[in-house]
């Protein structure tokens, strides 16, 4: 080096390398997002598109017909999320903890077997479970009968009280592989020295999990929670595949995604209303944004991180 560079040169290659991703992301994600937000401020009068400000939101929350459906869908969506948080994630963590035991045989087989449903299409999962649980052709009544528990069987997908929980559990079955994989990776990254040091101090087995491993994987659990939250509030496919756009019985499985679809595209004799549909989509966006912000600023920034 003969002389120091006084001014750092503008590094054009960064712009060039970022451009494709930025352009594609803008075209397929950012532009449609803002176009949808914009559409929610309009309505159609005659054949004309008219700007109405926040009128659509006033209709959505003020008109009993719309708000009832919205709160019903939001409530169902919350329950859908709660079931995932209480069932999917603890099971995922437990499976990961078991799989990370060095003595376990066939670990990679179990890992793949549990992860495979995640890569299946929603349509296949929805249809397969609908058949399994069907009172007419399904194997569920027969299997329960074989162990003498036929009395426990009910046409779950057709009963208002059970349908949503049943579908939530089907979704848990499908996606339990994701928290399992993420936690599994986090557990493997814990250095052996720490565990050995703990062992020297007399902390082994279960207490090693609770006192050493769990605090170290907490950031991963946080990430999983927020991924679950976003995925659940964007959910649509499974409900649509299993119960159709009317999310029966009696809207008991209606979540924000199906409510938005029905409104936006219309259903049977109900004509599509892109403006109210966008309004619901905007409300969904706001809910997810608030949830993510609470997590980012309220939880993640306070979480303790350990450097190895």
């Amino acid at each position, binding site marked *: 080096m003969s002389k120091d560079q006084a001014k750092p040169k503008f590094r054009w290659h960064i712009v060039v390398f970022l451009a494709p991703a930025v352009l594609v992301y803008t075209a397929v994600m950012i532009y449609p997002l803002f176009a949808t937000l914009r559409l929610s401020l309009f309505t159609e009068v005659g054949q004309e598109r008219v700007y109405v400000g926040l009128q659509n939101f006033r209709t959505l929350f003020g008109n009993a017909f719309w708000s009832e459906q919205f709160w019903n869908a939001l409530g169902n969506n919350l329950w859908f999320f709660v079931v995932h948080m209480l069932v999917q994630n603890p099971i995922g963590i437990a499976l990961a903890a078991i799989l990370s035991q060095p003595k376990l045989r066939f670990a990679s087989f179990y890992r793949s077997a549990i992860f495979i449903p995640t890569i299946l299409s929603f349509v296949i999962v929805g249809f397969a479970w609908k058949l399994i649980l069907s009172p007419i052709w399904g194997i569920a009544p027969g299997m329960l009968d074989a162990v003498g528990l036929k009395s426990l069987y009910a046409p779950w997908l057709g009963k208002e009280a059970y349908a949503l929980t049943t579908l939530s559990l089907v979704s848990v079955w499908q996606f339990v592989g994701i928290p399992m994989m993420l936690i599994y990776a986090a557990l493997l990254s814990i250095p052996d020295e720490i565990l050995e040091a703990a062992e020297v101090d007399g902390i082994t087995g279960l207490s090693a999990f609770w006192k050493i491993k769990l605090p170290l994987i907490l950031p991963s659990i946080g990430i999983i929670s927020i991924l679950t939250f976003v995925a659940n509030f964007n959910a649509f496919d499974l409900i649509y595949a299993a119960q159709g756009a009317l999310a029966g019985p009696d809207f008991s499985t209606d979540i924000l995604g199906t409510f938005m679809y029905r409104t936006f*595209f*219309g259903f049977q*004799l109900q004509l599509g209303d892109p403006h109210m549909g966008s309004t619901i989509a905007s409300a969904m966006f706001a809910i997810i944004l608030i949830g993510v912000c609470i997590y980012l600023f309220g939880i993640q920034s306070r979480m303790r991180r350990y450097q190895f």
Partner: protein
Amino acid sequence: MEKSKLIGAMLASTLIAGTATAQDVTLTIESWRNDDLAIWQDKIIPAFEAEHPGIKLNFTPSAPAEYNAVLNSKLDAGSAGDIITCRPFDASLALFEAGHLADISDIDGMASFSAVSKSGWSTDDASTQFCVPMASVIHGFIYNKDAFAEVGVEEPTTEAEFFAVLDKIKEDGTYIPMAMGTNDQWEAATMGYNNIGPNYWKGEEGRLALLAGDQKLTDEAWVAPYRQLAKWGAYLGDGFEAQTYPDSQNIFTLGRAAVYPTGSWEISGFNGLADFEMGAFYPPVQNAGDTCYISDHTDIGIGMNAATPNAEAATVFLNWVGSSEFATIFANALPGFFPLSDAPVTLEDPLAQEFISWRGECESTIRSTYQVLSRGTPNLENDTWNASVAVIKGEESPEDAGKRLQAGLASWYEPQQ
């Protein structure tokens, strides 16, 4: 030498084929009748193309439940086909008002249809038509003749007989009395409420009075069908709450159920599946000797995309759809979809003959919720699905269902306010 000749011949044939297709106009047909794909390809399209060289047809159906949404998006994007299969009433009217369907009031093919047939695809003042009426479907009950003979019951004509038959089949225990589920919801309203209802509200008389605001959904004539539906629950199979429409079709065609509340559109499908003899009876009347009313619902029309570049060829096709030739091919290829034109048509299928014979015995009407009444929010048709299911499951009383529907309708429909 041989090889180069062959190549030469192949090149020449591609050239000829190329010029031939360049002259042809291909009309793409949008439809929700994916069940009919084979019939269009094997019967209707060859018959048309043989008579009209230079016009090719391409039938591209989508799934029934998604059709309206898919079609609307395609029309807005300008990628829809030349010919549009029309849902009856508001869905198509909205397309016409949005400028997507062409005004075809004046084409020759429209001459052979009555005003009632055209009502499904006219503006509210009946001055403009935008689709050629293609077919209607008739509601009723299909039954398993073998099962009836085995249990020893006859076709019921009154409501009391109807329930006596169901009781007897239930007692016998070999067959599920009635195959219907509530999972998909629409069957309860379409095959339930709108099937048996016209007998109570006296067909067109009640329907038009409701439209005019002279009757209400809380009136006895409109609540009574729900009272009958509430009794149906006991005769449906185990787990009917989760039974879907294809489940019901299979249960009946496998011979496990005796009665199937339905419409004539099932005939062509069932003929190939059921290996027992099927019969049909119209919705039983309240007292012996009452006039019977049937739902003879205008179901399919066919119109022209206003933005089509091939308007001339499309008009030729629509005229042909209005002809008796098309009516005959269509009615016999698809027994159960009855042509609406005045042109005389002979039906060969016995079950279809049975259905169409009711047009002579009973008064015809269309489904009560289709014209105008499902225009607003809340949507009366979708609400009727919901209410019919709730009543069958016993979760809502017939009176409450009537009150709820009336409140929803009155919230936006002025004549009912």
